[in-house]
């Protein structure tokens, strides 16, 4: 990416040779400047800023599997959620049943697809999301009033009971200066393409955990998009361990300045499970902070995870702090994890930015340290895995959910072939 420095270029006219300055860099900058930026980006097509967003399915051609954002997904396992035969069909199966716990200050509605609020905080950015948008028949809308503090988690239970390909839409709006804990608990069997939109009002704090605890046969592709108001805080924790194939694309966009997003995730892929998480944090305004941390443990033949972390810090912003990290622990032979952090910085005026990524087996130094304290190897390994995963569980911040996820983790660890 061309790092254009206007001050340097202004000195250009006095130079004998165009583009040749005292520093060699000037030439490079000059040359880059001479080429239309669009050309470069079209050519490489890698900037997240170029990704199409649209409610119109025709804008997303039938998938070939070559697309950057689909190249890791086994399309043949999507049970036609991506409509491989053309745009005419809809996903007509019964969507998983939704129920929401009741709280003062929270309204729960089931609305028709033409409700004006739907789609106000998200735009589909891939084919399956557009298909879900085209297909859903009614949506669940959860609205939290302004200035309320709801400690008890608002729980949205999503319970699948059919494997007919279905579409689902959930809309959550948190009012200004309110504080809520919210859990989306996805269980049962389903083949579903899902859009979830979150609006976090000015000064509000939303702490969201989305649990993918599906039955083994479930296929779930989902977009979870958040729009953050000025000075709001959004924590989004994804816990995925159930289902045959889960592909989630959590996105945070900043609608106002001074907001903070923490995007965390934990996945535990067993034999044959494909778990894909592609996050996107779009720093399009000033003084916003993002912290992303996803951790995965994989065991068994064909256990597969994909993590892509797109962070875009746009050229017109300042005061951004951003860090993203993904760590994967391969617990057995035959498991595969892909991890791709993409940090794109279009501006030089950021406060801090960074990314890290790892795919590895056991840390032998950790193992040695614990064993040198008398802890037998199998127990030492479990401690290390537990510790590795705990880092995310500790971030959920909702006691009951932390306890439930800890229990699931203990079951997964009990099965470890160490």
């Amino acid at each position, binding site marked *: 990416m061309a790092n254009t420095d206007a001050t340097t270029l202004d000195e250009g006219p006095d130079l004998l040779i165009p583009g040749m300055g005292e520093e060699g860099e000037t030439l490079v900058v000059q040359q880059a400047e001479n080429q239309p930026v669009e050309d470069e980006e079209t050519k490489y097509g890698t900037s997240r800023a170029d990704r199409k967003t649209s409610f119109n399915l025709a804008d997303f051609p039938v998938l070939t599997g070559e697309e950057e954002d689909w190249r890791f997904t086994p399309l043949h396992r999507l049970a036609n959620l991506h409509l491989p035969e053309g745009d005419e069909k809809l996903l007509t199966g019964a969507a998983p049943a939704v129920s929401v716990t009741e709280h003062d200050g929270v309204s729960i509605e089931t609305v028709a697809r033409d409700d004006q609020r739907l789609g106000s905080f998200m735009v589909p950015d891939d084919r399956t999301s557009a298909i879900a948008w085209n297909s859903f028949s009614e949506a669940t809308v959860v609205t939290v009033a302004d200035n309320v503090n709801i400690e008890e988690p608002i729980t949205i239970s999503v319970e699948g009971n059919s494997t007919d390909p279905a579409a689902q839409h959930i809309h959550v709006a948190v009012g200004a200066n309110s504080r809520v804990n919210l859990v989306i608990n996805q269980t049962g069997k389903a083949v579903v393409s899902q859009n979830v939109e979150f609006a976090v009002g000015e000064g509000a704090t939303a702490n969201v955990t989305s649990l993918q605890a599906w039955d083994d046969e479930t296929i779930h592709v989902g977009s979870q998009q958040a729009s953050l108001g000025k000075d709001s805080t959004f924590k989004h924790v994804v816990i995925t361990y159930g289902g045959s194939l889960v592909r989630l694309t959590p996105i945070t966009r900043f609608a106002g300045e001074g907001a903070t997003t923490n995007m965390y995730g934990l996945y535990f892929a067993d034999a044959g499970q494909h778990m894909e998480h592609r996050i996107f944090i779009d720093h399009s305004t000033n003084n916003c902070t993002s912290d992303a941390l996803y951790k995965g443990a994989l065991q068994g033949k064909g256990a597969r995870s994909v993590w892509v972390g797109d962070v875009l810090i746009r050229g017109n912003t300042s005061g951004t702090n951003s860090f993203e990290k993904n760590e994967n622990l391969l617990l057995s032979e035959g498991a595969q994890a892909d991890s791709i952090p993409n940090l794109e910085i279009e501006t030089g005026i950021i406060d801090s930015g960074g990314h890290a990524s790892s795919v590895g087996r056991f840390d032998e130094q*950790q193992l*040695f*340290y*614990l*064993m040198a*304290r*008398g*802890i037998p*190897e199998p127990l030492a390994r479990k401690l290390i895995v537990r*510790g590795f995963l705990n880092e995310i569980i500790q971030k959920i911040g909702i006691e009951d959910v932390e306890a439930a996820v800890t229990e699931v983790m203990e079951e997964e660890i009990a099965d470890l072939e160490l």
Partner: protein
Amino acid sequence: MSTLEIKDLHVSIETEQGDKEILKGVSLTIKSGETHAIMGPNGSGKSTLAQAIAGHPSYNVTGGEILLDGEDVLDMEVDERAQAGLFLAMQYPVEVPGVSMSNFLRTAKTALDGESPAIRTWTKDVRSAMDNLEMESSFATRNVNEGFSGGEKKRAEILQLELFKPKFAILDETDSGLDIDALRVVSAGVNRAQETNDMGSMLITHYTRILRYIKPDYVHVFVDGKIVDSGGEELADRLEDEGYVNYEKTQAPA
């Protein structure tokens, strides 16, 4: 009374250029209650000796014996060596994310004793050991060595030494990176463990500074993978004045 015997120990490591012998025949016997200081220049193999006794998988023992009360230590797994009563206070304690100190200490104590410690006395023991080492109470809830300063890591090692009550401790440059206050606190911990449990110890160090706080019964000079001289405390004073140069002059420069 216990005895740790090291007999003609040869240890090598794998390098890109092939196996490299680091220890070239080390013999040393330590009895309960004794403190042996091992002093030598950088790269002489002191830490290799410590790691080999603890059983680190990167170090291959190619000859010799290590016996703890006649039992073959080299035949034991790493955890079995600790259970038999050996403790290595590490030069670079390892971070274990997500595992709290309190969980780790209890798990290790349970493994070492073969039964879980009584909750009431254990909590009290941990607290008083932490107080003695001037450690803040928040320490117990932090993850093992994670984000600890150099001094905190060394205190955490000595905390374990006091709680686990080994027969023999190998202290691998426990003094490095400590300021004078931390050195005093950590040394007091080692002395307490020695008095309370009649522990024998091998104190590996570059400097004589720590020997002002922990009095050695024996001082051994370690150069190029071997003990080249042994004596009493006065040998340390001589090293302080003369350095290792008299021992090294027959060696190729590092």
